[in-house]
């Protein structure tokens, strides 16, 4: 497959369990792939599917959503809603040609630094095997500058109008 491709993963970590799990992994000096870039949310239930799409749209190769284990949610059952959304989103992403490995939901309690680190390693490995996604250039064929909604799209076209007219 690809050589030395380093996937970039955006991680949405809930404040109470998985963010602390990542803290713990660090405190315990558990080394794992530096490919995941965490974003803190109060609860995995705050993860709007728009965030996942946004991350993919902005060039991430994968998205990890991490929450407390079902039944251990700090907000009682926010993670159950996450799980429901995740299942439906997964079906839709499949239709959009996004491989299943690219968007993963993992559970990690505050004490499971090791498990979270392993999940990051595993996902990184899977994405390395899968190769880059890099939506802006590989799917939309944008040159990537700005890549911010349609303004960028338009500004990229405008100068060439002379040629067409």
């Amino acid at each position, binding site marked *: 497959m690809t050589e030395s491709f380093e996937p970039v993963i955006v991680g949405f970590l809930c404040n109470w369990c998985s963010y602390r799990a990542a803290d713990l992994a660090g405190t315990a000096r558990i080394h794992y792939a530096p490919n995941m870039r965490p974003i803190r949310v109060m609860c995995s239930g705050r993860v709007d599917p728009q965030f996942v799409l946004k991350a993919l749209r902005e060039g991430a190769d994968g998205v990890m959503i991490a929450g407390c284990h079902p039944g251990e949610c700090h907000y009682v059952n926010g993670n159950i809603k996450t799980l429901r959304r995740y299942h439906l989103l997964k079906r839709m992403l499949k239709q*959009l040609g996004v491989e299943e490995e690219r968007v993963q939901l993992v559970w990690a309690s505050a004490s499971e630094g090791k498990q979270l680190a392993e999940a990051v390693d595993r996902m990184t490995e899977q994405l390395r095997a899968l190769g880059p996604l890099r939506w802006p250039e590989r*799917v*939309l064929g944008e040159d990537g500058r700005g890549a911010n909604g349609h303004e960028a799209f338009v500004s990229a*076209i405008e100068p060439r109008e002379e040629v067409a007219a």
Partner: protein
Amino acid sequence: MSVNGKPKLAMYWAAACGGCEISVLNIGEHILTVDEVFDLAFFPCIADFKTVDVRGYPDGYIDVCLFNGAIRNSENEEMARLLRKKSKILVAYGSCAYEGCIPALANLTSKEATLETVFLNNPTIDNPDRVLPQPAYSVPEGELEIPEFYHTVKALDQVVDVDYYIPGCPPEPHQVWAVLQVVVAALLDGAPLPPKGSIVGAGDVAVCEECPLEKREKTITRFYRPYEITPQPGLCLLEQGLVCLGPATRSGCGALCPQVGMGCRGCYGPLPGVEDQGAKMLSAIASVIDAGEAGMEEAELDRVIEEAVATIPDPAGTFYRFSMAHSILRRANDSQSDKV
């Protein structure tokens, strides 16, 4: 303004069904006012204009151009650029121009697959030589060209700068008339126009606001396709398991569909502050699915939820029926195909 002093109106269709033109004519007797106020500069559906006529206009000659239809091929794009150049106000009219609409559902697949379906695989096709349209073709008389079919369907503002948007598939006549009145007032009496980029002819609150059906707390165990059940009259369709995009869609239509037992399809597009109508509706619907609870074993939890969400067989087609081109991802990943 032109010699006779009347503002110039244009309406053009790109990848569209023609419904938008009908919606303009549907404003009833007001059409006479339109005729009175405007001078038609370009309106292929109802009058004989040629592209060459438009090319001949000075830049900015047209005061208002209602552009409907998505950008599907090179001709659509060329016309969009031309009309942009020749128009003072360019309006993305209707869902296709605004956000891709039905044509943009083709973004879920590739150009090749689309062409194959249309020209080779449909049951009614008789094409033994498997001929596909070619952008250029030589005949004794010379080289023939047809527009190039793009890989990705785009909304109008993804190829040119757009001043206003009128959503709807098609826009509702009363909204069309309301917008035209504003434009007329601006052009004739110098009344202020809404800020550039505004979405006009629609509300800022969701369809539910206009929908008279009774809304209760929502817990949905499974979904049905419209033919599977007869909804109980008077009650919110979503609660009954019929997918209704009303909560994620701009009002303005008067909630016509839900009132006749058909869930809102979402043609008025996302609400202000929402980037991706499909993702938002997906989130809302999944959140109120009554499947799985804390304390269940993980495998069981996955199973019951999977079972419930599987009752929506085509999430992308359902949630992005009108907004695919303007969704965050815009199209499906199809990295093996070319990118035009």
